[in-house]
C-alpha cells in the first residue's frame, strides 16, 4: 500500500521481508502473531515528533522504515542528538518497561513507517512471550552500551575536531565503509544537527569541515562525503 508520504507500507509483520535481519522483529511464529494483533502500522512525514522527553510513556514504536532522531534537551533549549535510529530499532522501550517518563525526544528525519504498540498491550505481550522478553533485554543492553559510548565521546574528547573526526569514523563503520581506504558517506544531517550530535555550535562544525577540506582530509560533492585521508582523520580522533 502506498502511503501519503511515498512509503511502501508493510501492513503485516508476517509478510515483512526484512524481519529476519532485525533483532526485535525476528520472533517465533506464535509471538509474531500476537504482536501483529496489538500493533498499529502508521506512516509519519519528516519532522513528526513520536514522543517527547518527560512525557508519560504511551507505548513503544518499532521503526520499520525511515530514520528517527533521538535527542535530549536542556532547559535553555539546547539540544543534543544521541543517535539517529535506523529501521528495526524499538523506540520508547525503557520508559515503557519502567513506567517512567520518556528520557528522549524522538523525531522523524525521513518519512517513516512505525508500528506502535500501547504500553499495556506491550507489557502483556512480554509476559506471554519469553522469547520477546529476551529480545527486549538484548535491545536495552545495546542501548545502554550506546549511551556509555556517547558518554565517553562527550566526556573524554578534548576538542570539537576530535569529536567530529570520531563521528565521521563511526559513521563509516556503520555504513560498512570502514575497511575501504577512502570511505564514502552520505551526509543526511545538516551542520546544525551534526553540531547537536557532538555538543558544539553550528558555526564550529562549518569551520571544521572547511578546515578538513582545506587539509584534503575530506572531500564533499553534494551530499556525499569522501574521507580522502583516513589516517589523518584517525590521528585527529585520537585513534592512533
Amino acid at each position: 500500500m502506498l502511503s501519503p508520504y511515498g512509503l511502501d507500507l508493510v501492513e503485516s509483520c508476517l509478510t515483512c521481508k526484512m524481519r529476519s535481519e532485525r533483532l526485535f522483529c525476528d520472533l517465533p511464529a506464535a509471538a509474531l502473531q500476537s504482536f501483529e494483533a496489538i500493533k498499529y502500522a502508521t506512516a509519519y512525514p519528516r519532522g513528526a515528533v513520536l514522543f517527547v522527553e518527560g512525557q508519560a510513556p504511551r507505548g513503544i514504536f518499532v521503526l520499520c522504515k525511515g530514520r528517527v532522531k533521538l535527542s535530549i534537551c536542556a532547559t535553555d533549549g539546547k539540544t543534543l542528538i544521541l543517535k539517529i535510529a535506523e529501521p528495526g530499532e524499538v523506540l520508547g522501550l525503557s520508559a515503557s518497561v519502567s513506567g517512567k517518563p520518556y528520557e528522549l525526544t524522538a523525531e522523524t528525519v525521513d518519512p517513516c513507517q512505525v508500528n506502535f504498540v500501547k504500553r499495556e498491550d506491550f507489557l502483556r505481550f512480554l509476559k506471554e512471550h519469553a522469547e520477546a522478553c529476551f529480545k527486549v533485554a538484548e535491545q536495552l543492553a545495546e542501548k545502554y552500551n550506546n549511551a556509555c559510548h556517547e558518554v565517553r565521546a562527550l566526556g573524554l574528547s578534548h576538542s570539537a575536531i576530535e569529536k567530529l573526526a570520531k563521528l565521521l569514523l563511526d559513521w563509516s563503520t556503520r555504513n560498512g565503509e570502514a575497511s575501504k581506504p577512502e570511505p564514502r558517506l552520505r551526509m543526511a544531517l545538516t551542520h546544525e544537527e551534526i553540531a547537536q550530535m557532538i555538543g558544539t555550535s553550528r558555526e564550529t562544525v562549518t569551520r571544521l569541515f572547511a578546515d578538513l577540506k582545506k587539509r584534503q582530509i575530506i572531500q564533499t560533492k553534494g551530499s556525499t562525503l569522501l574521507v580522502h585521508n583516513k589516517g589523518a582523520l584517525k590521528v585527529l580522533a585520537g585513534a592512533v
Partner: protein
Amino acid sequence: MITHRPTADSCLDCPPGSGRQLCDLPDGLLATFDKLKAISTCPRGQVLFTEGQRARGVFVLCQGRVRLSITSGEGRRITFHIAGPGETLGLSAVLSGQAHELRAEALDNCRVALVQRKDLLHFLRENRAACERILQVLADDLELAYQRVRQFGLARTRRGTAVSVH
C-alpha cells in the same frame, strides 16, 4: 585476579523485600539463582572488569561499593556511577555479547556474587519472571546512562567544561 570460593552464603538468607534489583526474585527462582552464583570477596582497589574486556558473567554486588568509570587512552577518567549493594554489574555486556563499556573497581572491601554468562542467559531464557526483572534493571541502568549523557553533553555545550573528570 579474583578468586571465587563458593561459600555457605545463600541468597535465600538475605532479608526479603530488600528492594534490591535482581535479588528480590520470587522464592523458587531465587533458589535457582542461588545455585548458579559463586560468592567472591574482592579487596578495595580490585578491578572486577575493564573496558574492552569480554564479559565472563554478571556481578551482583552483595556488600561494599564499586566505582564504574570510563577511561580515555591517556588515562583521564569519568566516574560514571558508584554502585551499591544489590546492584548488578556488567549486565549489558553479558546480554549483548559485546565487550564491557565500563571499568568496575572496588571502592571498599566487597562481596560479590558472580554468575557465569552462559548460566545467566540460560536462566533468563528459562524463567520469564527473571527476564522481566532484568528488563527493569536494564531500564534503570539506561535511565542512569541517559542522565550521564545529559550531564556531559549539555553541560559541555553550555559551559565548555566536563563534569567529574578525574
